[in-house]
């Protein structure tokens, strides 16, 4: 399988009056053709910013990609000019978001919002775009597509809106779909339908998916490869079966332990103690050290490197560093 997206040492920082927030700090990952890669982590760990950096949408008034490479299909996205990047967006790389209710423009009919990328990228005329939009609405499993095309977002349910978002995203047959917590705001039955649909489109078109989630159930169902992020860094990555059966990093282990298991009643569900560190107060260390049950002296003063821990499995933790012996 060919690499479609390679992110190397990506650093996206936000400059606040209180200091620099290193939202993404040296993240590397790769998505191969037809593969689903999941980025897992708690809120604020930088997973969404990683995705937005790929889209070229992380840079706002205060944020900026300060270093690294993002190579997509042979092109370094960070070197493209604004217009070249724009023509990739929605065409070769599409994205769907967490909140379908607020992600669609309230004053435009949903059909028109699906038509936009078709007109922009595939240069379809209005009529052809509309016909295609109606086809797409039917494809994402919505009945009466002609009527729904004229509906406004407030008239549809969250699940339907996420389907509309997916219809707009896949309209130009992208090579990569970035899905940022696509099912978090939906109820469980709808979640399963949406995930099924994503898998189906992926199989039909050999599209790659970069899925961002904090839900390990979603990971288990969707991922080929998993990247675990914590405080802007990758702490562990590996193929999904390997990672679930042999988690190495205490954070990954904690995440897996805190996942409820069906038909398995516990008095108390495990939760990783403590909170995500304040990004302004990070010092050179393993950022997980103050929540870690196996914290050693070295964890407080030195940052562990990401190193091989098996076949396609890497972890950044002092527990697995031979160097520890010498410290």
């Amino acid at each position, binding site marked *: 399988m060919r690499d479609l997206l390679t992110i190397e040492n990506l650093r996206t920082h936000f400059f606040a009056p209180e200091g620099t927030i290193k939202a993404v700090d040296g993240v590397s990952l790769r998505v191969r053709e037809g593969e689903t890669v999941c980025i897992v982590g708690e809120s604020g760990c930088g997973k969404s910013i990683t995705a937005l950096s790929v*889209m070229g949408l992380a840079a706002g008034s205060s944020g900026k990609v300060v270093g690294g490479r993002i190579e997509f299909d042979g092109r370094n996205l960070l070197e493209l000019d604004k217009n070249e990047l724009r023509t990739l967006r929605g065409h070769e790389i599409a994205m769907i*978001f967490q909140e379908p209710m*607020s992600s669609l*423009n*309230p*004053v435009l*009919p949903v059909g028109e919002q699906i038509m936009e*990328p078709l007109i*922009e990228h595939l240069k379809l005329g209005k009529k052809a775009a509309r016909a295609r939009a109606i086809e797409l609405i039917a494809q994402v499993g919505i009945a009466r597509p002609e009527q729904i095309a004229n509906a406004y977002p407030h008239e549809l349910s969250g699940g339907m809106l996420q389907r509309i978002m997916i219809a707009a995203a896949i309209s130009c047959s992208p090579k990569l779909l970035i899905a940022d917590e696509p099912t978090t705001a939906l109820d469980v039955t709808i979640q399963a339908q949406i995930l099924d649909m994503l898998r189906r489109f992926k199989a039909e078109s050999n599209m790659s998916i970069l899925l961002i989630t904090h839900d390990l159930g979603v990971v288990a169902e969707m991922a080929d490869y998993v990247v675990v992020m914590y405080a802007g860094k990758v702490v562990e990555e590996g193929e999904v079966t390997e990672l679930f059966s042999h988690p190495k990093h205490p954070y990954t282990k904690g995440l897996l332990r805190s996942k409820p298991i069906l038909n398995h009643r516990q008095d108390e569900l495990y939760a990783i103690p403590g909170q995500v560190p304040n990004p302004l107060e990070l010092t050179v260390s393993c950022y997980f050290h103050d929540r870690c049950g196996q914290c050693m002296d070295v964890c407080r003063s030195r940052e562990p490197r990401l190193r091989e821990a098996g076949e396609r499995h890497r972890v950044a933790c002092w527990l697995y560093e031979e160097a520890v012996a010498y410290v």
Partner: protein
Amino acid sequence: MSAFLTKRLLYTVVILLAASLLIFSLYAWTPGDFISGNIKLTPERKAELREIYGLNKPVLERYATWMKHAFHGDLGYSLAQQKPVLTLFNEYIWNSFLLAAVSTFFTWLIAVVIGVVAAYKQYSWFDTLVMVVIFGAMSLPSFFIGLFLIKILAVDWKLLPPGGMLTTGSNATGIAYFREVVRHMTLPVVVMTLLGIGSLTRYIRGNLIDVLKQDYIRTARAKGLKERKVLFKHALRNALLPAITLVGFELPSLFGGSLIIEKIFNWPGIGQLYMQSFGLRDYPLLMGFTVLIAILTVIGTLLSDILYRVADPRVRLQ
């Protein structure tokens, strides 16, 4: 929609009745009347005139009389000008409307353009400069900026006429008349636009900044739309929705004239006439004008409610 309209029109009638009663009582209870200001009259003559004009009758009875005539489309006869109120309105209101319409048009046009650019380039040097200038313009009183511009542009540089609507003694017609009016209205329009632009620009800038942070703007960008499309198709329409309320408020001010500007530029508008009538207690004219403004206000709000339903699909169905 028709049920909504019926209900709203019913409210409108009630509001207008209440407003007219209130306005009438306020004018009637203010000390003094049209007669008392004239010191040349003997007390006997005053009583006689009050009898003739009906000013000695109880307020409610006077109101009922006024109302009866108003329902027949007769707003009475101006005591001071000795002309029907409606004729006077027709003479003066259109002059005011001309000023107000042109300056409102420029105010909105400039405010939208500057507001959009300032919001899009928030905290840039352009944004900062515009905000400083706008606060400056908003803080200056209209009489000061008006007189200042007359001094510079009309008196010192003699570029534009200092006041009036036509040059004294002019009998220009056709194109020449049009050009003369345009030259005379330039200064007042500039001042009115300068004063109006500030708050509207801030309003549009603020709304647009909020809208640009919305998720659907990120979606529009993620779809690879051109920034122009993101800004004007997706953002501006949402940002201007709340401004529809302001459009309703503009209606009375379009016809209401401007007391200070018309005074400074000696513009023959309804504002000046109103001010004069107020000093003289010319009840029929005061009453007619205030009720007209009340009617326009009510129509304006109704209009903005209807516009809202047209522009915002979320309001349409409720």
